[in-house]
């Protein structure tokens, strides 16, 4: 099985420290709206958080019309901004909806297994395996 970022949603407190750490590690900015995983709060009922991470399913690479989605040394898919034509097919087809865009950047981005999020997670939601 491919290595990927696992999440035990039942432990998530919704704090978003993972999102901030991600944006700092990957883009060098403090902005959780530029993160590569997602937290979906479900309030007032049932009152839980759902964490969405890349499962390394490879759908993005399959649907990319120009082969811009590659694999890095950690085994994670990444979008090469030099080759991406911003057609957004990967964003649309991702089953977990964890390929993200932001107006500041021309091309979408996804998790590359850097692990910065794991370091700051208090309840221990995340791990790479």
């Amino acid at each position: 099985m491919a290595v990927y970022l696992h999440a035990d949603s039942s432990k998530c407190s919704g704090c978003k420290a993972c999102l901030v750490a991600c944006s700092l590690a990957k883009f060098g900015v403090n902005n959780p709206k530029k993160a590569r995983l997602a937290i979906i709060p479900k309030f007032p009922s049932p009152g839980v958080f759902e964490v969405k991470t890349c499962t390394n399913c490879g759908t993005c690479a399959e649907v990319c019309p120009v082969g811009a989605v590659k694999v890095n040394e950690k085994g994670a898919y990444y979008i090469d901004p030099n080759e991406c034509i911003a057609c957004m097919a990967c964003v649309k087809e991702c089953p977990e909806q964890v390929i993200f865009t932001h107006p500041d950047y021309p091309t979408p981005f996804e998790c590359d297994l850097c692990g910065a999020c794991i370091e700051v997670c208090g309840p221990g939601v995340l791990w790479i395996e």
Partner: protein
Amino acid sequence: MNGYGGKILRVNLTTGQISKEPTPPHVAEKFLGGRGFGIYFLYTEVPKGANPLGPENKLIISSGPLSGTLTPGAGKMDFTTKSPLTGGYASASVGGHLTAELKYAGYDSIIVEGVSPKPVYLYINNDEVELRDASDLWGKGSITVETELKKRLGEEFQIATIGPAGENLVKYACITHDFGRQAGRGGVGTVMGAKKLKAIAVHGTKDIPIADPPALLRLGTEAYKACKASEAFEAWVRYGTAGVTVWSNEVGAFPVRNFQAGALEDYSGLSGETMRQRIVITDKGCFGCPSPCGKYSHSKKYNIYVEGPEYETTALIGGDCALVDIEDVAYANWLCDELGIDSISAGNVIAFAIECFEKGILTKEDTGGLELRWGDPEVVFALLEKIARREGIGDLLAEGVKYLSKKLGENTEAFAIHVKGMEMSGYECHNAPAMLLSYMTCDVGAHHNRSWAITYDLQVGRDLVTPDKVDRVIYLQHVRPLFDCLGACRLQWVELSIDLGLYPPILKAITGIDRSWEDLMKISERVWNLTRMYWVREIEGFGREWDYPPARFYKEPVTYGPTKGKLMNWEDIQRLLDMYYEKRGWDKNGIPTPGKLEELGLTEIVGAGA
């Protein structure tokens, strides 16, 4: 300006005009942000003698330089205003995600001015800011409105709302955010209601400018690891503040029956573990917090979802009214959240009313046939509804315990448990001089959050009335509210004991400005003295007497618990104040001296506003 959203947003509800101005660097330098911005704008912009419910009062909503960054607990927002409850300074802090979102939208403070002719809500989406009609939301509960606005605008919007209590100008109405967090005390919700501002909705997608992002990533991550490594981490996350309940009863600090006793006969039904087993479903955290203290719960008995109860609600709605079942307290908590009432003041006022009824000062004629008695959840639920809607006896109770006791007379003032008109929170202190001094000198009235000194009383000896206790109170009054200026939570330091030394380097990495811990404490002392001067300016004859505690603490001994029979001594109370004023550089009447104001760089501000 690194570390800041960059703009102050001004919203004039009378004219509908919205304007933006750059966040003034000299104010950021001297006051940091959060509560510091709050008192700065309150003192310099709200004219002396303003009616708290009128158009001249302002509601100043501020984040701080740590808000929204990679710092443990970077999720606190301050609401400052002139208090309709006390007539003095009000500042209430709320966790959740609002403060971070405001920074991502590019703002540091929202200054709400005037009064709207019709109910509105404030819509902020990055640069797009407008006032929208809220007539279809008016009258609805806070949780209901938050749910509705998230449906309409999107889950990513952060929402703060008032409930019917704020609309009906209940003097201790609160503002609710994130399905169960409150800016609770002093009537900040009342001011919002008087301004006909039903809700605030914020969404932002911008970067917070950071001086040294790699350093922030490194230092912030270190701080998160320090939190996770704390020996107290598992207990804190399992129970949150509810873990205090058992200890408080065991040492006799738990207020029972309007602060007559220090413990319940049987408190097992209120314990954190009972709560965990019966109702808790999720450990819910504020922005950036690794140690989520929010205990999001579901009561099967009442079929409600509520975040809590916290220790304070358990102490005032539970102990003080003698309720012994955590699920009953949880339902009362939900009522307070949905109706928009500060649960601390509410519990305190209801306990006072029950005691008055017991003594025959209030009768069934006053209560519309309702029999007020201790330990009856239905009484508490009924009174909360009446207070929120100002129905029957609720209209009187909505004014707060100070007004109520003055109105009722018959020596009820002796057991109206407040200081400066703010109802006392959850620590019984007939025999806890440091904690009592904390309540007496807290800058919003009898609230514990500035100086939680009860543990010091227990550490060195309850009976001691010594200078070191005063030193401890002053130290806590500087370091704890500093976090309110930084826009972050202090509980990672308070409860997990992470090193305070972790914060200055993080702040420097964010702002680019090198500040030592001493520099930061000086800013905190500046803010403390300016909030004191606000009382001096607004209250005719303000001075020493306004720091006095309720007579119960020095006239009526504790009736039950480990401190049974104990009493404060009037001479000791005077001695505590003498020591406190001297150490603070204030005169014998408790007024900051010109020399102290000059030392703190406040002469210009105070001179101009006097």
